[in-house]
C-alpha cells in the first residue's frame, strides 16, 4: 500500500471516529430540556463566526490573528485532504495547496506555542497545554507528506505519518472524548443554536426569560435548575463550546475581589456535571470530579473536592451556593466571552432553584424578598414615603385622569437621603427644560429587579403584573428613571408580561433635551479631574454609554476614562443582590473600582445609578467625590441664573 492510500485510510478512519465522537457528544447535549431552535440557522454559522464571534475575538488582535492562521490553515488543509485523499484524486497541485495551508497553520501554531510559554493565569493549562504540540504534529506530518514524493525517504514518510496520526487523534478522538478541540464543533453549533438568537441581529439581548410558575414544571417538581439535565440542551451545547480562555475570569469583579466565583470554572463544572452519566456507570452514585480542571480555582476553594453528574443536584456537591450568590449579574463575563456563552442565565437559573424550591438565601436577601412581598419596597418602607423628597418641589403626581408626557419613576433610591439629592437635581433639570412630567407617587411599586436577580421569579412576576396593571391605567408617553435597574426591568423584561413602554434613562432624556435646545445648560465650574463610571445595567444591559459622556462634554467637562469603561466597564458590586447576599472575599468590589479612579487621578466620579452611588460612596478613606450626572448638570443651571 502506498503512502497515499494510507493517508486516505487514515482520513476515513479519522472521519468515522470523529462522527462517532460527535454522536456521543450530541447524546450528552440531548440530555438537556427541549428548546426552540431552527435547523436553518446552521446556514448562518459563517456570518455569525466572521462577524459576531470575531467582533469579540478581535479585541485581542494578537490572538485573533493567531487563531485565523491556525484554524484557517487547519480547516483549509482538512478540506483539501478530504478532496485529494478522501476522494482518492491524489493530484499534485492539491498537494501543493495542502502544503501552503499547513504552512500557514504551522505559523499559527508557532504563535500559540509562543503565547503558551508565558501564558496569563486566566488560561487553562492541563490538556490545553498539549494543544500546540498536537496541532504542530498534525501540521508537520501533513506538510511533510504533501511534499513531492521524490523528496521523501521511506523512514521520513513513516515518521511523518506517525506525527499525522498523533495530530489527527487530537481532532478525531479528542472531540468525542471532550478534549480541547471539542470547542471547534461545539462552538460552531452553538453559534447556530444559541439560546439568545437576537444577539446575532446586532441587538442586545439581556432580559432574563420568564419561567412558568403556575405548575411545578419539571418532572422532579423543582423550579429553576437543580441538576445539569434541567438546562436546555442548547445551553449544555453552549457550555461545551468554552475554550477556557479565562476572559470571563479576568473580567469578573467577584473573582477579582476574592469571592468564591470564577465564571470559567463555573462553566467547566457544568461540563463536568453533564458529561458524567451515573446511569451508564456500574456505580449508580458515581460522579465526575473537577480534579482535571487546570485553571484558577474559585478563590478560597481548592480544586478536586467537588463532583457531579447529569441527574445529581448541582448545589452543593458540584457548585457551592456561595459561588452562585457572589455574582453581581454584571454581564462582564458574557461581554468578554469569545464563544458567546451566557453565564448569567446559568447562574440565575441555578439561583431560581435555591430560592423558589429550597428557600435558601444567605445574608439579608430573605429579609429583602419578604419586604418586597409585603411592602413592594426593598427596604420595607411605606410606599407613601417614596416621594417625600419632592413635597416642596411643586411637581404633580400622576393619576388616571392626569395625562402627562413623561412619567418619572424614582425607584428604591428615593428612600435614600443621598440619592434624593440626585432626584431633586433631576426634577430641577426637567423643570428648566419645561417638560410636562409627573411623579408616580404611591402608585409605584418596586419593579422586582432585585427579586428576579436573586432568583425569586414569583415575587418578580407578581410585582411586574401589578405594575403593568397600574401603568396601563395611567396616561403618559414616556417613562424616565434615574435608576438603570428600573430601566432594564421596565424596558426589557416587562414586555414578556404585556408591558411595552418607552423607557429612558435620565441621561438619555437629558441628552435629547440638550441636543434639541429645550434644555439650556451652562458651563460647569467643575475644575477637578473627572471620570465617568458606567453602570452595568445602563451600559452592558442597555447599550447607553454615549449620552452621559455627551452631556458632560456639553457642560465643558472633560471625561478621563478609567481602565475599564463603556460596554466593558467594571461593576461597582451593587447589582444582582450581591450587597444583600454579601459573600465574603478578600476585598470589596467598590474598592477595586475606586482604585481604578484613583489610578488615573480622578477627583470626581460621575455616576448614573443609585446602586453605584451607594456602593462607591461606601468606600472608606480618601476617595473621589461621587456625583450623579444630574447633579453636575443641575449645578450649571444655578450658574446661569
Amino acid at each position, binding site marked *: 500500500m502506498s503512502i497515499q492510500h494510507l493517508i486516505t485510510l487514515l482520513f476515513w478512519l479519522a472521519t468515522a471516529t470523529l462522527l462517532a465522537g460527535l454522536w456521543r457528544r450530541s447524546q450528552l447535549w440531548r440530555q438537556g430540556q427541549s428548546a426552540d431552535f431552527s435547523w436553518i440557522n446552521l446556514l448562518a454559522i459563517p456570518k455569525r463566526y466572521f462577524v459576531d464571534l470575531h467582533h469579540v475575538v478581535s479585541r485581542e488582535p494578537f490572538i485573533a490573528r493567531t487563531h485565523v492562521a491556525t484554524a484557517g490553515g487547519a480547516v483549509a488543509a482538512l478540506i483539501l485532504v478530504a478532496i485529494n485523499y478522501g476522494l482518492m484524486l491524489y493530484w499534485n497541485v492539491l498537494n501543493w495547496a495542502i502544503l501552503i495551508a499547513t504552512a500557514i497553520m504551522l505559523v499559527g501554531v508557532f504563535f500559540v506555542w509562543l503565547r503558551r510559554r508565558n501564558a496569563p493565569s486566566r488560561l487553562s493549562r492541563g490538556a490545553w497545554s498539549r494543544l500546540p504540540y498536537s496541532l504542530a504534529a498534525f501540521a508537520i506530518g501533513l506538510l511533510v507528506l504533501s511534499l513531492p514524493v521524490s523528496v521523501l525517504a521511506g523512514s521520513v514518510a513513516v515518521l511523518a505519518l506517525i506525527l499525522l496520526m498523533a495530530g489527527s487523534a487530537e481532532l478525531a478522538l479528542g472531540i468525542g472524548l471532550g478534549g480541547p478541540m471539542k470547542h471547534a464543533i461545539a462552538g460552531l453549533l452553538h453559534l447556530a443554536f444559541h439560546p439568545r438568537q437576537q444577539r446575532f441581529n446586532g441587538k442586545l439581548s439581556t432580559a432574563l426569560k420568564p419561567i412558568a410558575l403556575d405548575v*411545578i414544571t419539571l418532572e422532579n*417538581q423543582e423550579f429553576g435548575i437543580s441538576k445539569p439535565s434541567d438546562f436546555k440542551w442548547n445551553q449544555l451545547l453552549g457550555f461545551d463550546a468554552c475554550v477556557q480562555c479565562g476572559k470571563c475570569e479576568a473580567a469578573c469583579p467577584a473573582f477579582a475581589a476574592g469571592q468564591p466565583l470564577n465564571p470559567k470554572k463555573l462553566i467547566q463544572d457544568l461540563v463536568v456535571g453533564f458529561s458524567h452519566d451515573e446511569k451508564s456507570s456500574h456505580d449508580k452514585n458515581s460522579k465526575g470530579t473537577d480534579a482535571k480542571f487546570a485553571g484558577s480555582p474559585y478563590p478560597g476553594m481548592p480544586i478536586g473536592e467537588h463532583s457531579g453528574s447529569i441527574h445529581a443536584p448541582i448545589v452543593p456537591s458540584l457548585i457551592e451556593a456561595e459561588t452562585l450568590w457572589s455574582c453581581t449579574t454584571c454581564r462582564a463575563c458574557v461581554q468578554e466571552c469569545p464563544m458567546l456563552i451566557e453565564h448569567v442565565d446559568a447562574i440565575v437559573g441555578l439561583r431560581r432553584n435555591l*430560592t*423558589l424550591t*429550597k*428557600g435558601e438565601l444567605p445574608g439579608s436577601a430573605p429579609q429583602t424578598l419578604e419586604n418586597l412581598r409585603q*411592602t413592594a419596597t426593598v427596604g420595607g*418602607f411605606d410606599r407613601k414615603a417614596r416621594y417625600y423628597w419632592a413635597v416642596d418641589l411643586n411637581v404633580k403626581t400622576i393619576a388616571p385622569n392626569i395625562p402627562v408626557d413623561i412619567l418619572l419613576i424614582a425607584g428604591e433610591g428615593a428612600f435614600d437621603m443621598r440619592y434624593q439629592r440626585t432626584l431633586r437635581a433631576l426634577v430641577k433639570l426637567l423643570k428648566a427644560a419645561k417638560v410636562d412630567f409627573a411623579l408616580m407617587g404611591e402608585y409605584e411599586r418596586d419593579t422586582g429587579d432585585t427579586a428576579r436577580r436573586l432568583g425569586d421569579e414569583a415575587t418578580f412576576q407578581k410585582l411586574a403584573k401589578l405594575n403593568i396593571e397600574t401603568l396601563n391605567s395611567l396616561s403618559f408617553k414616556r417613562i424616565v428613571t434615574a435608576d438603570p435597574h428600573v430601566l432594564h426591568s421596565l424596558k426589557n423584561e416587562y414586555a414578556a408580561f404585556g408591558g411595552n413602554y418607552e423607557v429612558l434613562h435620565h441621561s438619555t432624556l437629558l441628552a435629547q433635551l440638550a441636543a434639541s435646545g429645550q434644555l439650556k445648560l451652562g458651563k460647569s465650574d467643575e475644575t477637578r479631574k473627572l471620570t465617568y463610571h458606567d453602570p452595568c445595567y445602563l451600559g452592558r444591559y442597555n447599550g447607553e454609554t454615549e449620552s452621559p459622556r455627551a452631556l458632560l462634554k456639553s457642560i465643558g467637562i472633560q471625561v478621563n476614562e478609567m481602565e475599564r469603561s463603556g460596554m466593558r466597564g467594571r461593576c461597582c458590586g451593587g447589582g444582582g443582590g450581591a450587597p444583600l447576599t454579601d459573600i465574603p472575599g478578600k476585598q470589596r468590589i467598590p474598592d477595586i473600582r475606586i482604585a481604578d479612579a484613583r489610578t488615573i487621578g480622578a477627583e470626581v466620579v460621575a455616576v448614573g445609578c443609585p446602586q453605584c452611588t451607594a456602593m462607591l460612596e461606601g468606600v472608606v478613606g480618601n476617595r473621589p467625590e461621587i456625583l450623579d450626572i444630574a447633579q453636575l448638570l443641575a449645578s450649571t443651571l444655578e450658574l446661569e441664573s
Partner: protein
Amino acid sequence: MNIIKHITTLVSAGRHPVSGEPRHCHNDSLAMTIGLDMAKSISAKHHVLHAGNPDNKALSEYLALGAGQIDVIPISDDTDVVDCLATQLNHADLILTGSRAESGEDSSLLPYLLAEKIGIPLVVNALAIKVKANTIEVLQFLPKGKRRHVTVKLPAIIAIHPLAPASLKFSYARQISGAIKTLLVPYTSTSTSVHKTQWQTLASIRKPIKLKAPENKSGHDRMMSAISSESKGGAVVNNGNSVEKAQVILGYLREHRLINF
C-alpha cells in the same frame, strides 16, 4: 421511647405594620420551624392549626415556610379563639406557639389562657426544646443574656421567644403545593372577643415608642446595666400581696412621669 406523637403549632394571621398586608407572624413561624424540625428528628406528626378565616392570605406564607398543611377552624370574627382552640387540641402532646400575635388583641395572653383552659403547664420565652425520656427540656430566655433550663412534663404548651434561633426558609414551591384544610365542624362559641366587635384596625402610622424612665447614668453604668441585672438599679419586690406589688409599680411609673393618673 418517644412519648411525643403529635406536635401542634398554633399560627396566627399577621399583618405588616407599615403596609397592612396580611403576612405570617414571624414569631409563630419560628415556633412552627422549631416544631417541624423536632417532629422530623423524633418522627412525630406535626400539625399546624389556625383559628380564623381560611381564606386569609397570610396563611399561604406558612405553607411557603414549610407547614405542608394548615388546619383551619373557621370561626367568625367575633368568636373568642381560646375556646375553640382548646377543644381542638385534645390529641396534641406538645403545643407550640409564638409569644405574641401581630394583630387582634395582641396581648400575648393566649398561651396562658389556653394552658389554663386545657389544664396543662406552660413555658414561655422558649429558645430551644430538647426531648428527654418522659419530659422535655426547654431553654428559656431571661433578660440580660441569661438563660435557664426548665424541665416540663407533657402535654404542655411552649411559647417560643421572638429571638429563638431558627432560620425561616420561604419557598414558593412549598407555597403552591401546600394545602389549607378547613375543619369540618365549625366551632361555635358563646364567649366573644372584645376587640373584634368594638375595635377598628388600621395600619400603624408611627412606630410605638417604648415608655422608659429617663436614665441619667454614666457610660460605664449604662454598659453595666446592659450586661448584668444587678447593676440595673430599681428594686425587686418579693413581699406583699399582688395589690401591694402593683402599687410599687404604679409608684415607679408615677415617679418617672410615665403615667399621669
